[in-house]
């Protein structure tokens, strides 16, 4: 039967019509493609508007259209819209084909004539292809009601609590011995100067004791199988060497442990901890961990002081890592960020000059539970600084390191300046490139700092040195900077320097992303489904992102994303099933020769071989629709829906139709 095809070309305001002669394209399609079945061809200002959609629906009824081609934006944006419009109009949604004449034509080309010719070719390809589209029904997959949240920082905690409070089960996995993340390390939060721990710990306790949350700390995800609705996740629970069912968290073990180790994680190298430890007093869960790398028993075979003194016999040196497997329907990744390594900028002296600190170290220095009990003192542990220099944008907004803005450093640096003022009365210099305070109450905080008398020097610091040129500089750290507001080089002697190191993706973000089937941007942050309209979803159905994994952000934004991701997951759970694109391969048994070439090609082991019948068969529940087997079958026995050989071969013909015209015209 001959198909009746409707072609619709969108102006998208001037987005397409500015570069492509939309009327000419639609007219051309109506005339030149009539022999292929085009019965109506229109252009319209905004096809995605309800009027544009109604246009299609009206034509479906009036002309009895059996196929629809829409030339507009990328199918990743509006395919669902137009398929739905067709469905409303009584046409199977999969009989609609989208052609990207915006992202692939008008936005990337400048020559109007060439762009119009290309748009015609793309439409011809779409028309040739749509003839072979099949009426399909989406695949319905049940959604497992449990959720996996990876990362127990504030974003992950928020996400887990939202889902758990709604009555669904959550596995919250954290790599460190306690949840809390970076927020637990901070002293105050900007701009309200709330005590960070005071507002975080109630949430940690809630997460730790929630009946719907299984907390898996000191654990890491090692493998992810399956797909949305039905992921099977392997989690390695590292040996704690503590029987958690017996441990009361009394603290005698770490009191008695004779081995001290520098705490590089929680205390940022500023303080020591014991070989058996909880990272901080409010840790959730309360159980300690024995750090086998530094424990005397594991190193030398003797000691066991903790075991001797433990009142409940909760120490177990024989514990082994344990792998558990959980089944979940959705996954939220909230694995946070790493701090930029300030040693990479040697001229700032970090690691070489004693009184140069990073922002995280300074947080610990300010923190009442930190190494100095909250007093801001120099490296000697007693002298209060008289002048402090705070350097913004360390490793951020710098083509040599990270080109992006780390978003939080300006406000964090202002907070530091305020704390130094408040606690030491020292003079504070902030060295900034641009002051960025775009948040509720942030600009007001900046004004407050200006009134407090903090000096703001606009310029990128060139060097921090202890090489004095004048007697006043003797024994000081000298900050060399070009003050761009007065146009002069300045040397400012200070006692202490704080480097506001930027945020960067976790060192293993790429591998972790690969495990969950999501990709990183060129900066290394995970890519969201849409940067404006879908910031917490990813291209992989059922995998969501929240917090700094998606890009640098402050606490309120991380909390909002955690809650946002949770809302998306809850929506999926409530639907109980999800409609998936029916892109699947299937084998025509009659044509299959049983050669088994396809068997080894499938990474999802979806192809079974029936020895008795000597034919292969594809399990549609396991098939992900990549189409590799379709391309490989020498007998042509495998076909793939939505991307069949007929569809693609016809599309090639269609795309080259115009070209052939030109060449034949030239030859003739």
């Amino acid at each position, binding site marked *: 039967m001959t198909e009746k095809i409707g072609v619709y070309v969108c102006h998208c305001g001037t987005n397409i019509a500015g570069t492509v002669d939309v009327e000419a394209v639609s007219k051309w399609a109506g005339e030149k493609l009539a022999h292929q079945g085009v019965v109506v061809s229109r252009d319209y200002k905004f096809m995605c508007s309800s009027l544009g959609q109604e246009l299609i629906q009206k034509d479906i009824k009036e002309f009895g259209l059996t196929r629809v081609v829409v030339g507009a934006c990328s199918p990743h944006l509006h395919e669902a819209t137009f398929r739905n419009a067709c469905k409303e109009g009584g046409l199977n949604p999969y009989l609609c084909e989208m052609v*990207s004449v915006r*992202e692939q034509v008008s936005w*990337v080309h400048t020559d109007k004539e060439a762009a119009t010719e290309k748009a015609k070719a793309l439409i011809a390809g779409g028309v040739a292809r749509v003839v072979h589209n099949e009426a399909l029904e989406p695949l319905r997959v049940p959604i497992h009601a449990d959720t996996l949240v990876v990362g127990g920082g504030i974003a992950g905690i928020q996400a887990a609590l939202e889902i758990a409070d709604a009555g669904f089960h959550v596995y919250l996995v954290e790599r460190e011995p306690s949840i809390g993340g970076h927020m637990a390390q901070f002293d105050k939060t900007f701009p309200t100067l709330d005590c960070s721990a005071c507002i975080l710990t109630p949430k940690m306790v809630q997460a730790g004791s929630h009946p719907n949350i299984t907390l898996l700390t000191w654990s890491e995800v090692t493998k992810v199988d399956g797909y949305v609705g039905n992921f099977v996740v392997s989690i390695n629970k590292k040996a704690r060497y503590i029987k958690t069912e017996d441990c009361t968290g009394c603290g005698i073990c770490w009191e008695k442990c004779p081995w001290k180790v520098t705490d590089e994680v929680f205390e940022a190298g500023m303080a020591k901890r014991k070989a058996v430890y909880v990272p901080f007093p409010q840790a959730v869960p309360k159980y300690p961990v024995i750090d086998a790398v530094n424990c005397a028993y594991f190193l030398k075979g003797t000691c066991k002081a903790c075991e001797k003194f433990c009142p409940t016999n909760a120490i177990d040196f024989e514990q082994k890592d344990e792998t558990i497997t959980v089944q979940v329907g959705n996954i939220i990744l909230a694995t946070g960020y790493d701090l930029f390594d300030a040693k990479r900028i040697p001229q700032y002296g970090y690691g070489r000059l004693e009184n140069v600190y990073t922002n995280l170290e300074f947080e610990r220095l300010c923190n009442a539970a930190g190494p100095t009990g909250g007093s801001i003192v120099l490296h000697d542990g007693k002298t209060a600084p008289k002048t402090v220099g705070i350097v913004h944008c360390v490793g951020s907004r710098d083509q040599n390191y990270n080109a992006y803005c780390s978003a939080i450093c300006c406000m964090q640096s202002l907070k530091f300046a305020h704390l130094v003022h408040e606690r030491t009365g020292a003079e504070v210099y902030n060295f900034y490139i641009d002051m960025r305070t775009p948040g509720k109450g942030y600009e007001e905080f900046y004004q407050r700092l200006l009134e407090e008398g903090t000096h703001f020097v606009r310029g990128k610091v060139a060097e921090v040195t202890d090489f004095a040129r004048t007697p006043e500089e003797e024994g000081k750290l000298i900050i060399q900077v070009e003050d761009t507001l007065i146009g002069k080089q300045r040397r400012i002697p200070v006692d202490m320097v704080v480097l506001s190191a930027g945020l960067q993706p976790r060192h293993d973000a790429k591998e972790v992303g690969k495990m969950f089937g999501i*990709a*990183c941007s060129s900066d290394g942050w995970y890519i969201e489904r849409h940067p404006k309209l879908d910031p917490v979803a990813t291209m992989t159905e059922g995998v969501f992102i929240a917090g700094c994994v998606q890009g640098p952000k402050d606490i309120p934004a991380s909390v909002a994303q955690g809650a946002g991701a949770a809302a998306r997951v809850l929506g999926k759970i409530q639907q109980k099933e999800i409609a998936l694109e029916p892109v699947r391969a299937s084998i025509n048994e009659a044509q299959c020769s049983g050669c088994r070439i396809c068997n080894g090609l499938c*990474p999802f082991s979806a192809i079974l071989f029936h020895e008795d019948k000597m034919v292969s068969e594809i399990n549609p529940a396991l098939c992900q*629709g990549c189409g590799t087997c379709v*391309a490989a079958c020498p007998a042509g026995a495998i076909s793939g829906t939505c991307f069949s050989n007929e569809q693609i071969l016809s599309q090639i013909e269609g795309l080259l139709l115009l070209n052939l015209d030109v060449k034949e015209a030239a*030859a003739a």
Partner: protein
Amino acid sequence: MNDKTFEPTIIGFTCNWCSYRAADTAGTARVKYAPNVRLIRLMCSGRLDPTFVFKAFAGGADGVMVTGCHPGDCHYVEQNYKALRRFILMKRVLVQMGIDPARLKLQWASAAEGVQLAAEINKFVEEVRALGPLHWNLDYQEAVSTPAMEEVTA
């Protein structure tokens, strides 16, 4: 046609997850590139049947570009490696068919690499322009319309 510079026609195959997204990224960022390339979306570069490539050449394309996720980044675990195997094989077959294998290009592009993809398209367009028109479709028509061939195909 002789007084004009030769404008090659290139058919490009993209995967749904990385390289098609790279083309979208290029579009959204308004990165400009040559209008000679016409893209076809597949779910995965592993879907690329060599027939598609030969069909494109036979249909009048002067060059074919195969794109996909970077090795190790495939949405379907490893199917881009299968595309790579086929690509190498196709190059050999092209030689046997008398087609310069430089007319077939493989390019990995992640979803973020709009600028890179645009640059590679421009480069490839210039390379194919330098090779000149292929006219394989016309030659092919001539070849099959010889009496000897007609006898065989009849």
